[in-house]
C-alpha cells in the first residue's frame, strides 16, 4: 500500500483534487525550498520593476575589473559597471521573459489542444496536428534563432519565437486529456441540453485541464529562461536591457585577462533560479498528478 492510499484511508473527509494537491505539496520539503528560492528571486525582480534596487545597472560606478568589495559585491566588469546590480537586474529580465512566454505558450497550447481534442479526427484536428508536427520537426534553437533573427529590431522577437515553439508540448498533452474528457458524462450532458461546442470547450472542458497547464507553465518558465540566456549570448535575445546571457557573453572579453566574476555571477544566479524552479515544478507535478492525488 503506498503512502497516498494510506493517507486517503486514514482521512475519510472527501477532498477536491486541488485541496489534496495543496496538502501534498505542503509535505514536499524539496518543493517548498524550491518555492521559497523562487519567491526570493521574485522579490528581487519586483524590486527592480518598482525601481527599488539595481537602478544603476547601466551606469559606470567603479573602475575596470574592480575586485569584490563592500561597494561592489561581485566586482565590476570591463567598463566598470557593478556586476551585482546587473545580475539582479537580469533576474527581472528572466522573470519577465519566463512569465510572458509561460503564460502565453500555455494559453495558446491549451486552446489549440482543446480544439484539436474536442474535434478529434476533423480537419481542425488535422490542421493543428500538422502545425505541431512541422514545428516539432525543426531543431528548437535553430527555429528560435531564425524567428528572433527575422524580427531582429523588435524587442518582443525573442518572446514571439519562444511562444511559437513552446505551445506544442502543452497542446499535445491537453489534446489527449480533452479526448478523454469529451467522452465523459458531464460533456455528454452538456451536448444533450444543446450547449454550443465553444461553451462546452471553454467553460466545461478546459478548466479540467488546469493541472496540466499549471505544470506545463512551470516547465515552460524554466525553458524560457534557459533559451533567453542562450539567445542573448548569441546576440539574438535581449535588446537594450540586461540578462544573464549578455553577462556570460561579456565574460568572453575577460577570460584572457583572468577575470571570471561576470561568468560566475551570471551562471550562479541562473543556476539557482532554474534549479529551484525545477524542484518546485517536480513537486507541483507530483501534487497535481490525478493518478496519485485521487487514488
Amino acid at each position, binding site marked *: 500500500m503506498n503512502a497516498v492510499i494510506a493517507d486517503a484511508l486514514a482521512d475519510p473527509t472527501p477532498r477536491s483534487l486541488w485541496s489534496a494537491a495543496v496538502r501534498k505539496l505542503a509535505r514536499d520539503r524539496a518543493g517548498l525550498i524550491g518555492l521559497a528560492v523562487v519567491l526570493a528571486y521574485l522579490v528581487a525582480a519586483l524590486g527592480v520593476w518598482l525601481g527599488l534596487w539595481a537602478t544603476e545597472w*547601466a551606469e559606470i560606478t567603479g573602475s*575596470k575589473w574592480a575586485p569584490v568589495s563592500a561597494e561592489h559585491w561581485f566586482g565590476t566588469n*570591463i*567598463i*566598470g559597471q557593478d556586476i551585482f546590480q546587473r545580475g539582479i537586474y537580469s533576474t527581472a529580465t528572466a522573470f519577465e521573459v519566463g512569465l510572458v512566454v509561460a503564460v502565453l505558450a500555455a494559453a495558446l497550447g491549451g486552446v489549440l489542444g482543446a480544439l484539436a481534442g474536442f474535434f478529434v479526427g476533423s480537419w481542425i484536428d488535422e490542421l493543428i496536428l500538422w502545425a505541431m508536427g512541422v514545428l516539432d520537426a525543426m531543431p528548437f534553437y535553430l527555429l528560435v534563432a531564425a524567428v528572433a533573427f527575422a524580427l531582429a529590431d523588435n524587442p518582443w522577437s525573442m518572446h514571439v519565437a519562444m511562444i511559437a515553439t513552446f505551445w506544442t508540448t502543452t497542446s499535445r498533452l491537453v489534446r489527449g486529456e480533452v479526448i478523454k474528457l469529451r467522452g465523459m458524462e458531464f460533456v455528454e450532458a452538456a451536448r444533450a441540453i444543446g450547449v454550443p461546442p465553444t461553451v462546452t470547450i471553454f467553460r466545461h472542458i478546459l478548466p479540467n485541464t488546469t493541472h496540466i497547464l499549471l505544470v506545463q507553465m512551470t516547465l515552460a518558465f524554466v525553458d524560457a529562461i534557459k533559451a533567453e540566456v542562450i539567445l542573448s549570448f548569441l546576440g539574438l535575445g535581449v535588446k537594450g536591457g540586461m540578462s544573464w546571457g549578455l553577462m556570460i557573453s561579456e565574460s568572453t*572579453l*575577460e*577570460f*584572457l*585577462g583572468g577575470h571570471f566574476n561576470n561568468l560566475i555571477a551570471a551562471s550562479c544566479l541562473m543556476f539557482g533560479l532554474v534549479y529551484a524552479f525545477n524542484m518546485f515544478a517536480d513537486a507541483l507535478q507530483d501534487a497535481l498528478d490525478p493518478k496519485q492525488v485521487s487514488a
Partner: protein
Amino acid sequence: MRVTSTRYRTLLLALLCAPVTACDDASVPAPLTQDPDAGLKVYHHSMDESPASLDPVQAANIYANHILENTLDTLYAYKYLARPYELKTNLADGWPEISEDRLTYTIRIKRGVRFQDDACFPQGRGREVTAADFVYSLKRNFDPKNRPQGAWFWQGRIVGLDEWKDAGSDHAKEVPGLLALDRYTIQVRLTRPYPQLLDTFAQGYSGVIPREAVERYGREFGVHPVGSGPFKLVSYDSARAVLDRNPHYRQEPVDLAYEGYDPATQRYSGVERIAGRSPPFVDRVIFDFASDDASRWNSLTKGDEIQYAAVPPEKLDEILASRSPPRLKPEYAERYQLIVGLEAGFVFEVFNFSDPRYGYHPDPVQAGRNKALRCAIMKAFDWPARNESWYGGLARVFPGVIVPVTAEFDPDTPVDTITRDVPGARRLLAENGWNAGNLPEFVYGNSAGVKQRMMFEQLRAWLIDIGYPTEKVINKNYATFGDLSRAWKQNELPLISKGWGLDFPDAENTLQLFYGPNGSPGSNDANYRNPEFDRLYEEASVMLPGPERTAIYRRMNEILLQDCVGMTGLSRTRTYLWHKNVVGLPDREITGGFWIKFVDVLPKGESARPADLGQEI
C-alpha cells in the same frame, strides 16, 4: 600438425611484412598526414581578419594588402626600416621626371622583370612586365565591372580617366593622361598638381597584373592574383593563405642604410643578418586568419604554430614588466621579441551632419542648439576610460584628426575637446534648452559583437551622466561591418564610429574625410560641409610639404574642433610578439605587409637577437 603450424607462421610473417614493404616503396603515395612544409623554411604570420578579395582593385584593407604587397609589384614602396615612412623605388627604375608645372610624370620601369609562372601564359611561363601592364592595371580601378574601391585616389586627377569611365571603360581606348609611351615608359598627366601621386602608386590598388590572368580567371581572379612580387599565392581561403617563394624574383641585395636602418633602435631585431642578401629569404609564408584573440594567443604561445601575433590588451599586464619603456617579463623575453608602436591611423566617432537632430539645420537657432548638443556629448566622452577599457591604456588620445605619426601633427593643440567635463556638458545643455524630455533619440549603430555592445554600453553610461534618459540611447546591431558601413553611407545613423588607417603618411589622408565633395557615399561619412574648410583643403591639396601647408592643415583641424565635429581621436598602440628565431621588424601600418619579403627564419632554438644585447629591450 607441426608442418601446418609452420605454414601458418610463415603466412602470418608474410602478412606482417607486407605493409612494411609497401611503405618502403617509393611509388606509393605519401600518407595524408605528412607535413606539407617539411624541408621548407616557413614563416607563419597571423592576422585578425581574412581579406574578402585579392583582386588589387578591391584591396581596401590591410589584410588584402598584406598578401598583395607580397605577390604583386607596385611602382613604389615604403622603405623597410625608415621611420617616419619614406618611399623608395620598386618596379620603377628610379624617380620620375616631373614637368615644371608638376602636371606630367614620366616613369620608367625596370627591364627584365617577369610575372610569376602561371597557366594564363603560353607554356605557363611568366612574360616580362611592361608599362602597358601598369596602365591596364590602373585603368581597372575605373571599370565598374570590377567593383573597384580605390578609384578615389585618382578621381578627377588624371586627364581623361573619368571620361574614359563615363564612356564605358573600354580598355581598347586610350586615356590621354595615362599612357605607355613605350615598353618601359609610363606617362601620367594630371589635371592639377598632386603631391601624393607617388604614394598612391605604392598602394595595393595600383599593383601591376597581367591582362591574360584577368581574362583567364574572370571573377575567380579575386582568389588567384598573378603578379611579379617576391611570392606566389598557392592557396587561399577564409582560414589561411599560403604563399611560396617566386623563384624568378629579381635579385636586389638589401642595403640596410638605404632601407633606413637605425642600429640604435632596430638592431635587436637581428635585421643585420639580411644585409647584402636578396629577398625573399623564406620558402613559404603562411597567413593564418583568426579573429579570436584567444585563439591567436594560444597558437603563438604554444610554440609550434604562428610565429607572430598582436598581444591582446587583456594580456599586457601579464607579459610586460614595465609599460614605459615597454619591457617584457623575463619568462617572455626569453622566448619572444617585442615591438610597441603607435598606429598610423586613428579611431574616432563623428556626428552625421545630415541628421537635422544633431547636424545642420535650416533654422539657425536650432543649428546653434544642435552644435551645443554635439559639444556637450564631446564633453561627456571619457577618453582615458575608453583607452583603459579597450586599448590597455597604451593608446594616445589627441585632439582632432591629424594623427601623431604624421609630420603635420601639432602636440600643442589645446586638449579641451578631449577632456571630460560633465558639469560643463550639463551646463551647456541647460543653457541651450535641452532637457531629458526634448533630447533627441541617440541611435548607436555597431556590428554584432560583444566588444561592440560593451562600447555602446560605455557611451550610454556617459550620456546618462549628462542627463540622457537610458531609454533614449539605443543600440542598433548590424549583422556585419558591411551592413553597418552601408547604414552610415545611407545616413541612417547620427554617429559614425570608425577607424581609419593612413594610406600614406600625410595628414591630407585624414583631412579628406571631412572635405565636402567627398560626402556619402564618399569617404566623408559625416557629410561635413564647411566652405572655409573646403577652400583650405583645395588650397593645400596642390602644395608640396612644408611649413605653409602644415599651417593650413592645422587651421583645418581647428575648424573641425570648433564645429564639434565629434569625439576624435585615438591612435592605438600596437603591441606585437614574435618568436626569437624570426629575423624581422614587423609593421602592419600604411600599406601593411611591405616588410614580409625581408623576413628570415632561423632554425628552432636559435635567436635573431644579437647575443651582446641580452634580453632587455
